């Protein structure tokens, strides 16, 4: 069996210890789901979007739920921090590297497998957009 020391940065451990924006969201405007329990990482990101006075679509609220390792949990928590209050266009530009950098880096082996949080965020925004299109269709 494998032995593990602490390969994680302080910032990663902080987010792991006290995850931000944790939980489910009722009546989310968009939900992003990525990963697969087989591989050991599954993330859900929930967003609530509202329009600003300028007519921009802002991520008003965001929540996450994650099954996975320390890196998976910390990146999920971090991405919610990065996206909160941003316009959906800005949020779409958040990359996996942004998330890892904000956490003062991830162990190389975790960069690929557990750094899915940006993907989950993008999926949630896409889900929001497609829902919106659908509801507009209905109106027409």
């Amino acid at each position, binding site marked *: *069996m494998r032995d593990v020391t602490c390969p994680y940065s302080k910032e990663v451990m902080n987010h*792991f210890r006290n995850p931000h924006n944790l939980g489910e969201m009722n009546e989310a*405007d968009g939900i992003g789901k990525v990963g697969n329990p087989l591989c050991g990482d599954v993330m859900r990101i929930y967003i609530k979007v509202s329009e600003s006075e300028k007519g921009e679509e802002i991520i008003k609220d965001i929540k996450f739920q994650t099954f996975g390792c320390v890196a998976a949990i910390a990146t999920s928590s971090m991405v919610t921090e990065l996206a909160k209050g941003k316009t959906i266009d800005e949020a779409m530009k958040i990359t996996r590297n942004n998330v890892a950098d904000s956490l003062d880096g991830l162990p190389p082996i975790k960069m690929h497998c557990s750094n899915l949080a940006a993907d989950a965020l993008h999926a949630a925004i896409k889900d929001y957009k497609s*829902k919106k299109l659908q509801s507009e269709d209905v109106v027409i």
Partner: protein
Amino acid sequence: MRKVYMDYAATTPVDDRVLEAMKPFFSKKYGNASSMHSYGQDAKNALDNSRHILADSINAKNNEIVFTGSGSEADNLAIKGVAFANRFKGKHIITSSIEHHAVLEPCEWLEKQGFDLTILPVDKSGLVDPSAVETAIRKDTILVSIMHANNEIGTIEPIDEIGRICKENDVYFHTDAVQTFGKISIDIEKMNVDLLSTSAHKLYGPKGVGCLYVRDDVKIEPLIHGGKHEFGLRSSTENIAGIVGFGKAVELRKGEMPTEMRNLTKLRTILIKEVIKIEDAHLNGHSELRLPNNANFWFKFIEGESLMMDLSLNGVSASTGSACSSKSLKASHVLLAIGLKPEEAHGSLRLSLGKYNTAEDVEYVLNVLPKSVEKLRKISPFKRDWNSENNFEKNIRT
């Protein structure tokens, strides 16, 4: 914060008395055991003494004890050494799906070199079926390697019976006893083994010293050629300090083993009884045929590396078979072999106890562990089943 080490299957601290016994051999009695002068003879005597202690402890002869650089090296020597020496007799090797990598990898490497390999399955508790060994033996089988007890789930294999079958069929039998040596008494005659691997750092000795018992009529080639140390099976100037430490550790086990194993069994039994009360916690391995110090669980809907790290933040050191904590990013082959699904194996936790653990340690773990599990389940999207869509779609605004 209390610190509790419950990862004795990974390694153990060096016993103070072992350390004291080793000390003189670094800078005072530093001779080379091959030298004729007094420094050399001091080293040679110390080497012989340890060899005798090890031989005596498993009912073997002195010349059947080969010191190696680790348990992994002992496994490699047994498997590759026997395969090479007997390749004209046959090319078939039998092992099990739950062996340590130090056995499985050499076997798989030999397969690439043209040997035939049969990997026997195990049942849900991790047991190899001796009759399956018998069925698998062919005319060209040269070696069977089945571990004495598994390092992850602690299951103790029916070694005596497998040994008897190998003897009847005139096939060499190797067992990896790295996890049992010093915990369960070993008698190579009763067990009918031809080769047996051990490692000092699992029994309060130093790291980097192992031993392979090789019955004196076994045909075997060395891995390391050179000055013919260790009966020609392991050349290189002997690690006298390490070997002295190994000898001392084994000597101490003799007196300590019976009471200690009774204590550990008691503590371990309480641990298992209480932990499986946690909702959706499951025991891995056999309920009775298991190492006295081993407990292994899986917890539904959470991942083991997170669990291990959360425990570590609370002072408890344990280990997991989750893919996320492995260099290969694969879930434990042992847990998959006993029928766990990958997502279940990811949620595994091994607690392995040792002689410095107390009832208070167990109590502390029983206090901390349920909280860690609960915390991670709160974070997890899975609540009732793995298909979280059920409790999921309702959240979407319609």
